[in-house]
């Protein structure tokens, strides 16, 4: 999730029908610059190169969020059912399977994290093999990785327990944008 105040100016973002690295593009109304959603940076127009300020958020199941934050408010679109979404692990551009599987398939999913200039990806399949929370250091700073299989989520906190900006992504998508990212393997350090 991004903040909309950039260089002191409030921007309004719209959905653009193009892609970069098979990932969504957005465009702001005020300058018509085009931004990469996953990279969080303008790739076209007057704001080119400008990073989008990240707001730490968490992607999880409604049950987990409601149970941990019962006072939460929820965005709704009255009269609309929306588009029910399940994790499917299908690489963009590959043919759509004839029958979409029901339920979530999280085998390619993980937590991508950039912290202090260091970039790491934590695959769910690896986090499943260990006891979490996992304590480790990235760029010399303490990072704690949390994983909740039932809540379909992983998240990272810092030394003071604050939520760090991370992103749940398919490993192939994360590596397309962060080819130098290291990938966590169970038993390779931490704790």
């Amino acid at each position, binding site marked *: *999730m*991004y*903040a*909309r*105040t950039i260089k002191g100016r*409030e921007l*309004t*973002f*719209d*959905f*653009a*029908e*193009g*892609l*970069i690295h*098979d990932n*969504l*593009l*957005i*465009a702001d*109304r005020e300058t*018509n610059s*085009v931004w990469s*959603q996953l990279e969080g940076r303008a*790739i*076209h*127009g007057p704001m080119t190169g400008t990073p989008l300020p990240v*707001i*730490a*958020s*968490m*992607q*999880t*199941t*409604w*049950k987990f*969020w*409601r149970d941990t*934050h*019962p*006072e*939460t*408010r*929820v*965005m*709704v*679109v*009255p009269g*609309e*059912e*929306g*588009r*029910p*979404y399940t994790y499917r692990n299908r690489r*963009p*551009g*590959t043919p759509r399977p004839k029958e979409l599987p029901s339920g*979530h398939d999280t085998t390619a999913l993980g937590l991508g994290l950039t912290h202090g200039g260091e970039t790491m990806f934590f695959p769910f399949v690896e986090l499943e093999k260990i006891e979490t929370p996992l304590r480790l250091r990235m760029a010399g700073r303490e990072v704690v990785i949390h994983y909740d299989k039932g809540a*379909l989520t992983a998240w990272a906190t810092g030394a003071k327990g604050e*939520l760090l900006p991370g992103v749940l992504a398919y490993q192939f998508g994360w590596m397309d944008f962060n080819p130098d990212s290291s990938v966590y393997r169970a038993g390779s350090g931490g704790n």
Partner: protein
Amino acid sequence: MLKSAFLAVLALLVAVGPPDVLAAAPEADPPKPEVRIIRARVQPRPGAEVEEVDMKVHASPTELTSVEAGDAPLADEDLVLGVIIDGRAMAYPVRYLAMYEIVDDRVGETPVAPSW
């Protein structure tokens, strides 16, 4: 023969109009979302090479509705994007974000752009 058949079809069209046009024009037509074009070097579709295209940009909603947790029409396993800003918790269901890809909201005083 051909001419009379043509006239018959023409008369039918005049009488009832082409069926698709009638079906697509209800009396209270909702306003279409605003679309603009930006020319940029991007992939026109997944897996495609980057090329210069006239890219359609769809205006995202800026006036959102929110409800309390108990009134949310969601299933336990629905995915949400949750955020806490200045002590306020807000959940953006992926099923709604997927309709627009990105929306423009404000949590307290902070302008935010949750996207999917």
